[in-house]
């Protein structure tokens, strides 16, 4: 984090302007310009266009299968190959998915929406156009509320919102494999025609961290809804960022697009890099080049003549008589089956278990961690606030170190619960528990009890033994004892440390402290 040097500027009117760090209003990752530059600082403006592959069995307008890996061109129907004489037939599941996603993002669902053709030439677009919803999409005007951990120690949950301009249904294109060596492109149409939800976000974000947090939240929402599996590395969630810089209050600058990002982490870095690049250019007095392609200039659209308007009904009461249930998309029905969204889940965890919001945030943010946490709680008597410490600091810490997911953890919830029980019932001290955890991590399968027995780590509560060890320590550290008698209580901890060293950390700390206090005070009585 850049520490801001507060600088004092004198304007012509000789009033003093003190520029202070404003990291609360702007992302910390943005560097501070030099003091000599203009009083107003350049800030980044980020808008996202997200393409989410709809989780359905078949494609948007044809009955061919949707799968990530399959032999090339084996999941292609005649329509997908755009052979003449074929027509699009809309997949109801895709409409349901789009409506559900729109509802989860507080959008207005358009009762009537239209399909268009967007024309451009590319080898993986066999028809020469993509069927999309540019004029009237299925959902408009929503909001995405996202959070990230900020503040000095990254322990404060910062909440922000970004407006969603629209959600539209559209076709995916096929895949091109470029063979530059032989100057050719290999085309696989398996992905051609798969249903996508394009989510257009307003440029309400100002840096990579915010964009990454927004995408992460969207990922969690889509996964909770089941409308998209959200796997960025498999291309199920594709993010394009439009980045520009400007001085607050002034018009927006030239946009540059950041594309082809396949992880949330890289998204943040790529955006920040672009913001910095543009700031550098502008500070040197240059101008940002707009490198958009010809077909981005909003032309090549025409209505799709083969598809009538898509009508969505508010509730069962508004259905026309005689309509078949499988032909009707009813918003109320979909609203009723909306699952618990991540933000609601976070609040529920805080309410139910009394854990801190930032812990709840971390729990929900990590795939499978909530289930792990709740599984441990079921089997142990330890309170949730203590368990959360173990789950986040020890378990998640170790997982992150080795870049593992929760499902790959060598310690199962029940195994961890057993370890926690041993601590709760006083069989081992808390420091020993940490040791045992490390051992369990390394030798997967061994229970906590086994390790404690093998390495003889059980708590020593035998008072006679403890007394003699404490006596030994007191006798061999007269200076420290004197310091304690003179009022320096903190030195007691040093003696405790020595006792623990003797007992290899197996002494009951409460007992040791009591014994040492007794012994040191006794001496002074003589």
């Amino acid at each position: 984090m850049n520490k801001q040097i507060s600088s004092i500027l004198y304007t012509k009117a000789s009033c003093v302007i003190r520029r202070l760090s404003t990291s609360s209003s702007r992302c910390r990752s943005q560097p501070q310009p030099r003091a000599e530059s203009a009083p107003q600082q350049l800030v980044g403006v980020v808008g996202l266009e997200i393409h989410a592959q709809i989780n359905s069995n078949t494609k948007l307008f044809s009955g061919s299968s949707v799968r990530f890996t399959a032999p090339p061109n084996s999941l292609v129907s005649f329509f997908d190959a755009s052979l003449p004489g074929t027509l699009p037939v809309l997949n109801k599941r895709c409409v349901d998915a789009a409506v559900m996603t729109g509802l989860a993002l507080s959008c207005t669902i358009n009762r009537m929406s239209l399909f268009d053709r967007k024309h451009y030439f590319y080898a993986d677009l066999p028809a020469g156009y993509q069927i999309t919803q540019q004029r009237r999409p299925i959902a408009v005007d929503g909001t995405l509320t996202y959070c990230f951990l900020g503040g000095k120690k990254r322990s404060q949950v910062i909440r922000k919102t970004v407006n969603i301009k629209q959600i539209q249904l559209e076709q995916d294109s096929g895949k091109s494999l470029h063979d530059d060596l032989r100057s050719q492109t290999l085309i696989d149409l398996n992905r051609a025609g798969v249903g996508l939800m394009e989510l257009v976000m307003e440029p309400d974000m100002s840096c990579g961290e915010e964009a990454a947090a927004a995408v992460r939240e969207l990922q969690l929402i889509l996964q909770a809804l089941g409308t998209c599996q959200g796997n960025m590395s498999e291309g199920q969630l594709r993010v394009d960022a439009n980045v520009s810089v400007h001085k607050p209050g002034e018009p927006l600058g030239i946009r540059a697009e950041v594309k082809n990002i396949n992880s949330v982490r890289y998204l943040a870095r790529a955006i920040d890099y672009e913001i910095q690049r543009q700031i550098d250019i502008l500070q040197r007095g240059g101008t940002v080049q707009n490198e958009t392609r010809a077909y981005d200039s909003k032309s090549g659209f025409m209505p799709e003549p083969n598809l009538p308007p898509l009508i969505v009904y508010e509730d069962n009461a508004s259905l026309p008589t005689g309509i078949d249930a499988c032909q009707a998309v009813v918003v109320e029905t979909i609203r009723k089956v909306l699952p618990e969204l991540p933000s609601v889940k976070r609040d529920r965890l805080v309410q139910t278990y009394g854990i801190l919001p930032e812990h709840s945030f971390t729990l929900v943010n990590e795939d499978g961690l909530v289930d792990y946490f709740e599984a441990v709680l079921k089997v142990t008597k330890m309170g949730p606030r203590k368990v959360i410490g173990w789950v986040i600091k020890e378990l998640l810490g170790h997982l992150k170190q080795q870049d593992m997911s929760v499902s790959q953890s060598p310690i199962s919830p029940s195994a961890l619960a057993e370890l926690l029980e041993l601590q709760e019932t006083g069989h081992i001290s808390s420091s020993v528990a940490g040791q045992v955890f490390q051992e369990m991590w390394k030798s997967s399968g061994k229970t906590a009890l086994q390790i404690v027995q093998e390495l003889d780590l059980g708590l020593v509560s035998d008072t006679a033994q403890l007394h003699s060890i404490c006596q030994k320590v007191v006798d061999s550290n007269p200076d420290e004892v004197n310091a304690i008698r003179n009022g320096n209580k903190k030195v007691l901890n040093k003696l405790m440390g020595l006792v623990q060293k003797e007992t290899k950390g197996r002494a009951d700390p409460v007992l040791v402290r009591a014994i040492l206090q007794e012994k040191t005070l006794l001496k002074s009585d003589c």
Partner: protein
Amino acid sequence: MSAFGLVAKRGVSPKIIRPSFNLLTNDGYSAASSFLQGHNTNITRLLSSQPHNPKVPKVATWEPASEDQLPPPAQIPADLVDKLERLALVDFRTKQGLACLEKAIRFADQLHVVDTSSVEPMDSVLEDRALNLRADAVTEGGCAEELLQLSKNTIEEYFVAPPGNIPLPTKEERASMLKHSEL
């Protein structure tokens, strides 16, 4: 387009009326109007097996709109021509091509004569129909071999296309390319 539209029929005689863009009238009108006004208006259906429907007039009754009813003729700047060429991937920068484009636009300008106030544009003749929704079950696909047979160039179940998208050369480059090809 359909005013010209006598598609060639079988056993055709030299009576085919084809659009002739070389026929310029001095008021800039498309050739057909003057052609139909002055010349043979006897459009008969050749080799038809059905009797003539009385609802269809025997003689064309269409009259072209007069020049004062039309908006001013569209000017097509060179940039627009370039953009159109880029979108359509068609070269039409020749004198003939541009004249054809202008006449086509002029012909379409006649649509402005129609009063469309408070009438929604129709973009599909299906607008009153219900959109048919399909159940999410696999019913197609698995015909890679059949599809690949349609392509001249394939490699191991992939279609082969030229590399990437070769960007269209700039206006100046293309103008010089055309000049060279015309030589």
